[in-house]
């Protein structure tokens, strides 16, 4: 099996689906001729032609707006928002239109589209190239929200997202595009080729939406994480030597509650990690559901380790980032109570 970076895996998912289904079209800012600022669409225009993969004007609302129209026509648009931080102009088309079209028309029309967007910090991108807006999507009925943590899942989940008949928000943690970054920003960069989850089957396969996976089995505490934070959680477990069970949620909505409840039922402790600001982040929803379903199993309060409730700063990036130290401290604290 080839070993791929996340960028290569994403590109291959698009390639596989464009070859299988001529209704799949790919577009966004700089994605056509140039192949995307992160190179995720490199070569697709050359291979499938400019009306299957093309550059768009700098208008996120336009990008998603035309995608809704194309979806209603019967195509399978895969739109790229250059950075998740720039999705706000498209938020109305996502929330008021894509998410509700099937419901409001009682199934007459639907918008089977995928909106891909790089998210998260760790690249000195400051407030406008670092955000993790997943909670702004999970609150919206009608959307599915997906966030992979490795090349294998990225390809399989993206294929599943494109095949899905509902609008899917596909968040790509840009800090792990090129390697399984675990938050130790002061250590040498590790490439994906060294990680087993860069092994990516050729051709078509799916990682179904709505299924979490246990990345590390453990008995003491459950860590709920997704995206880059899965690797940070692994690094934290290693350094504090606590036998944590790490769940990679992969899909936030619909949530794989069974896997979560089973694990917390076993460990009795729960730490939630995400990079987004804390207040009303997706960690709040996880905490609410875990306490609801595991109340009598919990030994101690659920703890959230998150980005602070501030914009993402530039020079203080690593002070903002919920890295392995902070996660480790939380684990220790949770084990002490």
């Amino acid at each position: 099996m080839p070993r791929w970076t996340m960028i290569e895996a994403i590109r291959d998912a698009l390639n596989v689906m464009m070859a299988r289904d001529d209704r799949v079209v790919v577009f966004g800012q700089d994605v056509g001729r140039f192949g995307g600022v992160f190179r995720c669409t490199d070569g697709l225009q050359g291979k499938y032609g400019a009306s299957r993969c093309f550059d768009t004007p700098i208008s996120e609302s336009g990008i998603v707006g035309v995608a809704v129209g194309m979806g209603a026509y019967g195509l399978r648009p895969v739109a790229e928002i250059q950075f998740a931080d720039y999705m706000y102009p498209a938020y109305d088309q996502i929330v008021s239109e894509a998410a509700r079209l099937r419901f409001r028309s009682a199934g007459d029309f639907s918008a089977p589209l995928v909106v891909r967007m790089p998210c998260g910090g760790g690249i000195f991108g400051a407030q406008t190239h670092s955000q993790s807006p997943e909670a702004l999507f999970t609150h919206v009925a009608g959307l599915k929200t997906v966030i992979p943590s490795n090349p294998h899942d990225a390809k399989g989940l993206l294929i599943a997202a494109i095949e899905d008949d509902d609008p899917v928000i596909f968040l790509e943690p840009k800090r792990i595009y090129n390697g399984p970054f675990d938050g130790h920003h002061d250590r040498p960069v590790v490439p994906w080729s060294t990680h087993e989850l860069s092994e990516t089957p050729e051709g078509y396969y799916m990682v179904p939406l709505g299924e979490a996976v246990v990345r590390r089995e453990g008995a003491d505490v459950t860590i709920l994480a997704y995206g880059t934070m899965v690797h940070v959680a692994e690094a934290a477990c290693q350094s504090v030597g606590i036998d944590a069970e790490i769940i990679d949620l992969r899909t936030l909505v619909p949530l794989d509650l069974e896997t979560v409840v089973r694990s917390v039922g076993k460990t009795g402790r729960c730490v939630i990690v995400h990079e987004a600001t804390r207040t009303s982040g997706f960690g709040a929803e996880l905490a609410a559901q875990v306490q609801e379903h595991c109340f009598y199993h919990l030994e101690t309060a659920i703890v959230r380790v998150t980005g602070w409730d501030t914009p993402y700063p530039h020079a203080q990036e690593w002070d903002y980032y919920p890295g392995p130290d902070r996660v480790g401290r939380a684990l220790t604290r949770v084990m002490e109570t």
Partner: protein
Amino acid sequence: MTSSPLTLHIPVPLPCRDGDFSHLHLSDAGGVDRPPVDVREDKIRGFAFQLIRVLDDEGRAVGSWSGTCSVEQLRSGLRAMLKTRAYDVRMAMMQRQRKTSFYMQCTGEEAIACAFQAALKPGDMNFPTYRQQGLLIAQDWPVVDMMCQVLSNERDRMKGRQLPVFYSAPEAGFFSISGNLATQYVQAVGWAMASAMRGDTRVAAAWIGEGSTAENDFHAALVFASVYRPPVILNVVNNQWAISTNQSVAGGEWTTFAARAHGYGIPALRVDGNDYLAVHAAALWAVERARRNLGPTLIEWVTYRMAPHSTSDDPSKYRPQGDQSSWLLGDPIERLKDHLIAIGAWSEERHIQLKVELDEEISTAAREAQGFGTLMEGAKCSPASMFEDVYKVMPRHLREQRQESGF
């Protein structure tokens, strides 16, 4: 350079200005020539400041835009407009009788949707606002079906989910109406792009009110239409009012809405929207352009909102006295009727007879529709259906919530 204090310009409703109608940029009937459909945009920029009109004050059809309709087509256009008006009257009454929550009439604007629809082919797709019921009625779409939607009853194909008048009818080329203004405008462009990408022959029509051209999606639509030249007709219905604000608050004080297209290199027409013949001719022209892969056309339809904005509205609170009475382009139904009479194809008697017939048809339909329930009483869609269609397949959390709800 002086430095006296600046002041902010706040627009006032235009018709107030001492009977000054220059902002209407009127033209005589027949005064604007019909260019070939493959004309270059820069050759017809002047069209944005004129008004394409076919019917003159004597009810004659004049000029190069005339002659696109047979007498039979004109009579069926008259019928569609009359039926639309009868439908509106009836539905507004049912709202007053508290059989539903809300209704929106298109009184005075019937020619636009009815004549436009006549220029389309099956398979073409409209992306309407809430004031294009004429698109459905002109196709003889069953009014009982429309009424059931308005009444949110058990036969409402929208399952009681949508506000009254937010129809959806894919088979009639009528896209689901959104309550959020302007969002559908850019979707129409996307649909048209898809049609072109697939080598299809179908065209799309986007609809928006002049007030809503201020919204973002209007711009996004024009940008994408400008770049990719898809087969779409960009309709702007300028009925002078947007709830309580005059078109001057949308920018109409300084130019026309047709002129918006110029900044995008999109050809624009400006048309007397109360002239059924002009509407039909202009629509045909733009549809042909689209179908021949010549790209998008923007059309400003100049008309007047005779009714309140909706049943929740009271125009006497904001419309200047005499605004409506000084309106210059008349009533589209009267004008087409006069034309048909002038050419000997219609009479006052037949007109009255047709109205009676249509009122009867609408009444029968209303009785039938009410038989399936109204919002306030009788049958309606089950509450459990509320959990359906949020996703194609109901996910676990919605199944659990449905269970929790007890429905």
